[in-house]
Structures are given as structure tokens and as C-alpha cells.
């Protein structure tokens, strides 16, 4: 399934957000996710099913002012 992850195209076999993060190598606990512009909290990742064309954002702590 083709999805966009942090603005880059990816072809994944995972069907849930939780599985996709593992497949994509996002192993850090210090990440937060949004799917198609909507926040997906950690407890909801397992039950969040992906659809072709989804836009996934994976964010991490960063320096800021």
C-alpha cells in the first residue's frame, strides 16, 4: 500500500498505524503521530487502520524558540 510518511512516498505492507511504525523503523518512544492532519494518540495506534494514499506525520522533540 502506498502512503506518504513525512512527505515522502512509502510502500508498506502493514495495515495498522502501530505496525507501520515498526515497519518503517520508528522505534523511539519519543514520537507523536498524526494521520491525514488528525492527531492519533499512542493508545489508538493499534486500532487505526491505514488506507492507500494516507498522509502520516511522525514528529519528535526538536529545538524550538
Amino acid at each position, binding site marked *: 500500500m502506498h502512503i506518504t510518511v513525512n512527505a515522502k512516498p512509502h510502500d508498506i505492507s502493514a495495515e495498522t498505524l502501530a505496525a507501520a511504525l515498526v515497519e518503517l523503523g520508528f522505534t523511539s518512544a*519519543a*514520537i507523536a503521530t498524526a494521520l491525514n*492532519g488528525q*492527531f492519533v494518540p499512542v493508545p489508538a495506534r493499534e486500532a487505526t487502520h491505514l488506507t492507500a494514499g494516507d498522509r502520516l506525520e511522525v514528529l*519528535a522533540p526538536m*529545538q524550538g*524558540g
Partner: protein
Amino acid sequence: MRVYGTEITLPLFLGTAQYPSPAILQDAILSSQCEVVTVSLRRETAGGTGARFWDMLRATGARILPNTAGCHSVQEAVTTAQMARELFATDWIKLEVIGHGDTLQPDVFALVEAARILATDGFKVFPYMNDDLIVGEKLLEAGCQVLMPWGAPIGSGQGLRNPDALRAMRAHFPDTPLIVDAGIGRPSDAVLAMELGMDAVLLNTAVARAGDPVGMARAMALAVETGRLGFAADPIDRRDMAVPSTPVLGLAELM
């Protein structure tokens, strides 16, 4: 200063971006003894550098104030705030909704809308705003308990472009914590902000891009303390003409 039920001793909030190295950032936080630092969220990179940065910040003991920097819409800001709340385990959020790419001035209409959504959702919102009294009123109505007017455009180092507007805000919102956010360039700017009765100063570039960030962080810490003491001590009014400070009475006639 007491904000959202939290007592903050040193009225200096420090940004964490643009330092020459993580070690210098850490030293700047520790040397200034600032109690609140701002952070952001960006796309995770390979290798997970975000987690290391987060571990380093936590080691300083400073309270974390995540921002929504770079957001230009209500939805972007609200989603970013929700992600930040989970990631940093805090309901504090420095709400930025940028309205113009060159000036980075806030879109105050979207700001108020986003503030209302977030405050209703339980966030403790620190809104980056201009120095407009009515915008301040709307933000308080939306649920904010602190206001953060700009001193000058972000990163410009121009100091306080409109001290009269900040003075008016102080008079209009006597019981609301006011934090000057953005524009501070030098310690004297921070002194002036505090002498105007602001409750704190938030700055980043002025320290991070200084020749000696650690030294400048310490200077800023002393500056906000100096300004706060000066305001509390009730400065004299300016006069147009000289008034002798040495008593005239008893002056000898020696001509």
C-alpha cells in the same frame, strides 16, 4: 510570577534553538538558572535524534513549554498542540499561529480561535500575540490566563519597538501575567521590558546567536532580575530640566 498555578522564580523563558551545540545549550540553561524552556516538534529523522535531545533537556530539570512554531492555520496548531501534549507530557502550550512569512507576526484571528479550542480541551495556553489590547481581551475570554505580546519580530533583535503599547497592556491587564515574547536583542531590552512591569521575558536568538551564549544567558538572567527590582522600587518620573540633588540651602557665597 505565578502562571497557571505554577510559581516561577526567575522571569526568564529560554528557547532551545540555534545554539552552537547541545552542550552549550545545556550550559546556557544551567548558567541562567532559567526554569522554563521552549521546545518544538519536527519530523523524526533516521536514528531518532529527537529522543536524545529530549533526554538532555529533561536532565536540566527545566519545565518544558512546547510551541506550535511554523503553524499557519488553526488545524495545524491544534494538531501540533495535541501531539506536543502527549510527547512532552505537559498541557502547557506556547501557541503560535503565524500570519505572515516575512514578519512572522501572529494571525490574531486564527490565534483566538485556536486558543479557544485548546483551552476548552484543557490546555494551558501561552499565546504569542501582538500588543493589541482587544486581541488580549479576546484571548482571555477564550480561556488564556497569560498573554505573550511581542517586543519586535521574532529573531530580529530589535528590542521593544513599541514600549508604550506594552505599558498600555500592563495598565489594561493589571492582574494577568504578561510575558514579552520575541524581539529581545540585548540585556538592556530585557531590563526595559521588566521595568515596564512585564512579568517575564521569553527569548531565544539573543542568547543562542550571541558570541558567548552561556555568558549572554547569565547576563539576561541578571537583566530580568534588575528590571523587576527596578519596577518594584517605583522609579522616579522623567523631568525636562535639571533639579539639583545636592541641597542648595546653606550654600556658601564665595564670589
